[in-house]
């Protein structure tokens, strides 16, 4: 694959990242982006994740700037999705999974046992790889989160469902049979936008997306990407993707993960997307984005 030229074109068209790069020659795992502390929305500090005795992710430290998009790229098995799930503690659901190090949301450590995962997941929403709407009406899918939080006022729910669907760019396609049509009756791309609307209805601050477009056709994929660029105005987004053009098109910052010899995933480097795709610091990154491995 030779997409180097495309990449730099894509990078040129992107808004300049609002991130200052400081230490170009930093060691591989170090963070080479430092934002003002008050602009950091989420961050990890020496995070390692293991399943039983197997280390899946080793010693990852990085910051995610508020209202920006971070893309996690890397070969299969490099721990990107596992790492993503430490932000909303979905790893808690896997028996034997342990997370070491600190994961902070607005400076507060979310791995603290006192933290309410319910509250955390309301602030940090998640969109999954396979669109997974509930087998309920479109309306009930979107109303699911707010209802669980105790919102039952009909007028307020109507309004919330409408704004959420509008933000997810799905309203015009579904407004006529909100209550009659099942979420499962939509096309794959519509289902994924419904899942995004469902997350938006819980009013999150951060949205995690685990390969949100990998099961979608190219047109639906582009719509999701456009949507992500719009959502970036109000939300912090972390996306795992296998599609490097996608990372180049949508993200502000890219983090490249790969697998060590013992199969543990680690962070090779992180930096502004334009630089990662044109002048990566690491040979491994360059090999990966130019298609020489992975």
């Amino acid at each position, binding site marked *: 694959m030779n997409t180097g030229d495309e990449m730099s074109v894509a990078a040129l068209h992107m808004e300049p990242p609002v991130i200052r790069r400081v230490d170009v020659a930093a060691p591989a795992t170090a963070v080479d982006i430092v934002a003002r502390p008050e602009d950091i929305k989420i961050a990890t500090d020496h995070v390692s994740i293991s399943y039983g005795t197997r280390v899946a992710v080793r010693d990852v430290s990085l910051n995610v700037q508020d209202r920006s998009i971070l893309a996690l790229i890397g070969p299969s098995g490099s721990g990107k999705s596992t790492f993503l799930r430490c932000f*909303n503690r*979905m790893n808690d*659901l896997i*028996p034997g999974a342990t997370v070491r190090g600190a994961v902070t949301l607005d400076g507060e450590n979310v791995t603290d046992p006192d933290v309410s995962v*319910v*509250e*955390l*997941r*309301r602030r940090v*929403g*998640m969109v*999954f790889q*396979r669109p*997974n*709407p*509930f*087998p*309920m*009406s479109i309306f*009930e899918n979107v109303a*699911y*989160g707010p*209802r*669980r*939080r105790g919102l039952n006022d009909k007028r307020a729910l109507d309004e919330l469902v409408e704004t959420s669907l509008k933000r997810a760019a799905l309203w015009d396609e579904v407004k006529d049979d909100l209550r009659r049509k099942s979420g499962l009756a939509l096309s794959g791309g519509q289902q994924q936008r419904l*899942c995004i609307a*469902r*997350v938006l209805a*819980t009013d999150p601050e951060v949205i995690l997306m685990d390969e949100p477009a990998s099961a979608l056709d190219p047109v639906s994929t582009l719509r999701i990407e456009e949507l992500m660029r719009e959502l970036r105005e109000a939300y912090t987004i972390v996306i795992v993707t296998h599609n490097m053009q996608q990372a180049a098109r949508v993200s502000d910052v890219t983090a490249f993960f790969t697998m060590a010899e013992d199969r543990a995933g680690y962070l090779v480097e992180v930096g502004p997307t334009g630089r990662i795709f044109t002048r990566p610091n690491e040979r491994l990154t360059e090999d990966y984005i130019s298609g020489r491995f992975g």
Partner: protein
Amino acid sequence: MTASAERASGRPPGPKPSLKGSAARGSILADRAATAVLWGTGVLVLAILGGIIVHFAVAAWGVVSPSFIVGDPSDTELGGILPVLWNSIYMLGLTMFIAVPVGILGGIYMAEYAGENRVTSAIRFAEEAISSVPSIVVGLFGLILFVDNFRWGFTALSGALALTFFNLPLMTRLAEQALRAVPQDERSASLALGATKWQTIRHVVLPLAIPGLITGVILTAGRVFGEAAVLLFTSGIGTPPHYDFTDFDLGNPASPWSPLRPATTLSVYIWKLNSEGLGVFKNQIVDGSAAILISMVLTFNLGARFLGRLLSRRLTAA
């Protein structure tokens, strides 16, 4: 190199094999044989069910009439099976009232809360062991515990509890399986939206598990309708020819609503008539009762499926 060239290069030169070649004949035959056997099995199952229904429909023709159900039972008249029919329905209600909620709660515990450890494997072992105990043994156990030790005597309550002993393991196991069959994705989606575990079970897992839970209810109910051995020793044989359905005094052993009265069910009645009945119309009554029993079972099964669909829609709507 193109893909097709690569593929072709691996093959020795020579005439191309025909699509009608014989190389795959063996596997094609095996495929046809499997299709035929599976088809045949399905047809056999349907034929047995159809055969039973047709047999009793024919045998009961001319026997079953309104008076067969509500008439006055005597040795010279057909019918009057309303009291035993009522007892079957009553026992079903009483047993399901205990077994379904406890079974579903047990299933939720086993599927969603219990880990894989010695306690849960002991529970599973007990479930299987109790389910395979012959029902006559369960009946004897009920006789010793409820009838004698608790001094309840031969009562509907003794029978219903013995049936619960018999059915609870099955209901729990089927409920657990129904819940486990709900895809993990659905749970993740709900939890990731900030729902609690119980909210996830209540609003996502249970509604999706309803078809499986209904299967559990139907199988359990079928054993209540059909069970004679357990009830013989627990709810007894002894039913008055008439019930006064306006008598709601639960303490009165003559009230059809009281759990503390002997209650012969339709199955026990059929068994009793068939083994020791002497009346002129014995065989007709047995056939008629069997036809009624079968139609009750079918009605219950269809009704349960229908209610399950309604419930599923209700639960997911709000």
